[in-house]
């Protein structure tokens, strides 16, 4: 772990290379615009990736598959509540966070009470969340309040506002993971849940908090995504299922649990956006783009796990 090469530096290096390769083709005049777009879109991946990272750190079998549905539910319901009216922004945000808490509690209740594996529990819960979103939405497309629309597409000090939010979230997570008792216990459970319990770690309390955290982050991402794109859509979360897992793995967190990596989430999120835009600018079709994206993810995960096995 010592020295200059940190586990997360690979994700940033890959993002930098992809950025350079894209700029080389499109020309220097497109470079600032590409950077802004990258930071903006990476923000959503960072928000969901941080929550997913905490869940994956819990150890084998732990993953939150309800992230897309929670994003959709929080986006549609909070926009419906605000109904585009000024002065309701804080209520909308609070509603989204409340929905996240509720969804996380439902996920964990399924895991704890019915003893369903988390992968099944969060997947089946996500059907309920998605159905709730469909039922409440009924095809209406409600615009966000102007203030939120302006804020989410705007920038401060040259950096998109959403990127500031994701940066703040990452900082909070870094403190939580690296400095707090919660983070210690999370890592202990991921390494050996039995040993952790026998060392007095409140295993169930930490697991519950982690699933709540993941759902709240998904709800937050859903809220801002709905505001940013001028309204919620029922499929708005779809691409964030694979994305949330990919940024955790590419970012250098251990897929086997116990070891998480906050800065890597940012590097990986930017890389994931840049790889798509690079293939785009090379004029490849959607099908080829998807195949190549998948291949790149597999290659990085294989390289990362090979490096760990050798170490």
């Amino acid at each position, binding site marked *: 772990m010592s020295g200059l090469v940190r586990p997360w530096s690979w994700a940033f290096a890959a993002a930098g290379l992809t950025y350079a390769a894209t700029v080389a083709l499109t020309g220097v005049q497109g470079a600032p615009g590409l950077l802004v777009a990258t930071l903006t879109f990476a923000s959503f991946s960072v928000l969901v990736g941080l929550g997913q990272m905490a869940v994956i750190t819990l150890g084998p079998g732990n993953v939150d598959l309800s992230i897309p549905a929670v994003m959709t539910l929080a986006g549609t319901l909070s926009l419906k509540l605000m109904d585009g009216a000024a002065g309701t922004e804080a209520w909308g945000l609070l509603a989204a966070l409340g929905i996240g808490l509720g969804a996380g509690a439902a996920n964990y209740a399924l895991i704890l009470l019915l003893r369903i594996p988390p992968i099944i529990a969060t997947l089946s819960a996500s059907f309920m969340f998605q159905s709730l979103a469909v039922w409440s939405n009924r095809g209406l497309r409600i615009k966000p309040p102007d203030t939120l629309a302006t804020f989410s597409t705007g920038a401060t000090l040259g950096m998109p506002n959403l990127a500031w939010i994701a940066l703040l979230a990452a900082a909070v997570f870094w*403190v939580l993971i690296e*400095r*707090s*008792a*919660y983070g*210690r*216990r999370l*890592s*202990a459970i991921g*390494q*050996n849940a*039995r*040993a*952790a*319990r*026998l*060392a*007095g*770690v*409140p*295993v*169930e*309390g*930490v697991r*519950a908090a982690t699933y709540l955290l993941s759902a709240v982050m998904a709800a937050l991402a859903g809220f801002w995504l709905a505001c940013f794109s001028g309204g919620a859509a029922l499929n708005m979360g779809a691409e964030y299922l694979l994305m949330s897992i990919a940024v955790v793995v590419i970012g250098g967190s251990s897929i086997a649990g*116990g*070891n998480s990596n906050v800065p890597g989430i940012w590097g990986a999120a930017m890389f994931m956006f840049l790889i798509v835009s690079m293939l785009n600018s090379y004029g490849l079709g959607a099908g080829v783009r998807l195949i190549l994206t998948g291949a790149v993810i597999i290659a990085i995960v294989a390289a990362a796990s090979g490096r760990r096995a050798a170490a």
Partner: protein
Amino acid sequence: MDLSAAPAPIVALAGAGRSFGAVRALAGVDLSIAPGECLGLVGHNGAGKSTLVNLVTGALAPSEGSVRHAAGDPRASGVRWVAQELSLAPNLTVAENLILTQRDLRGLGWRNPARARIRAALDRVFPDHGLDADATVADLTLAQRQMAEIAMAFAEGGPDPRLVILDEPTSSLDASRAGQLLEHVRRFRDGGGAIVFISHILGEVFAVATRIVVMRDGRIVDDRPAGGFTRSGLVEAMGHVVRGGDRTERRNDKGPEVVATAEGLRAHAGEVVGLAGLAGHGQAEALARLFLARTSAWRGRGPVPVAFVAGDRARDGVLPLWSIARNLSLAGLSLLTRAGLVDRGAEGALARDWRGRIGIRTDDVDRPILSLSGGNQQKVLFARALATEAPIVLMDDPMRGVDVGTKAEVYDMIRAEAARGRTFLWYSTEAEEMTLCDRAYVFRNGRIAAELAGAEITEERLLAASFEMGEVPG
């Protein structure tokens, strides 16, 4: 026919030994087993019985000396083995399991001879067994599985059994089935077969054995015809009778009772209470149950009520990705936490303090825990528990793989902490450690079989209570 000529042995060990790394599990064993013999094999956990059996069955090769079988290899010589942990394939039927050991079952119609052989064997060993040869093993009770496995060992075919090794064969059988088995063992022996019979129920050993071999510390220490032993003589031969007279002064003034479980485990403040008995008789489970009942899986704040020292370090103790300091501070983390954040300065100071107090051999507590030797990792786990200031400390056979010097240091520390009013519940399979306790409970088959106090805790008394002395079933 010359009756004085000894029949050729089925297996003969000459100076046989086996080492695992630096550990010599078995050394200098001379032993031959002839047809018509039933060898009772007795000794402590870890005395080398399993290693000896593994040499006889060919599962392990000797690292010194030789092991010779009558027909060259164990299978051709008719060596069969019923292991203590049952080993049937649960997804197959009783008859189908036979193909795993009997290699002459082949071709399309192998199920019919398999069925015939297992039915015949079941009828012979356990009359009125009521077992269906086509029943899937997973659907059988534990006793039925044990019966099926024993019958498989005695089944004819591929080559016929000549030496059958039974390792705790009656552990899941009731008295009448156990009686049937003993009856069959005698018949098999009288018909010219050989048996190695391992049991902690000495009555059974005396009921069937023609010869008894006593093992201790990887060696055969006694080998006589069964008539040459008395029960108490056998128990004495199994254990060391030596006992240091350096038992430290014990507290007579009992503090308040701090532990009282439904199964009868009691402990007072300042007491060191031993959980003795043979390995796997429910001691570790009793400690784990007590720990889980006294601690919360939900709340992680405030003082630590009880701490646990793991003996199986990899399974229950060490967190391999972490440093020494992080491993050490985990159990008492709530004491180092301010506003949710870990005070890393205090954590480092605590780790360095315990490095000195318990002698963890490292120059830097921020090194990975796996950089330490096993004994030093164990010291970290001790420090983890003691640093919590928990009034009750549970220890699950914590001296496994710990060298003698470290043990002495830790014994002293336990005594000193007990004098300060802490209570220790200490499970160990080593009788020597139990003699350091104020009181000891002897576990047998998951229950407390005896309670010894003070000077009553001797190796002989512990052994006698660990083994069922009496009743021959059937």
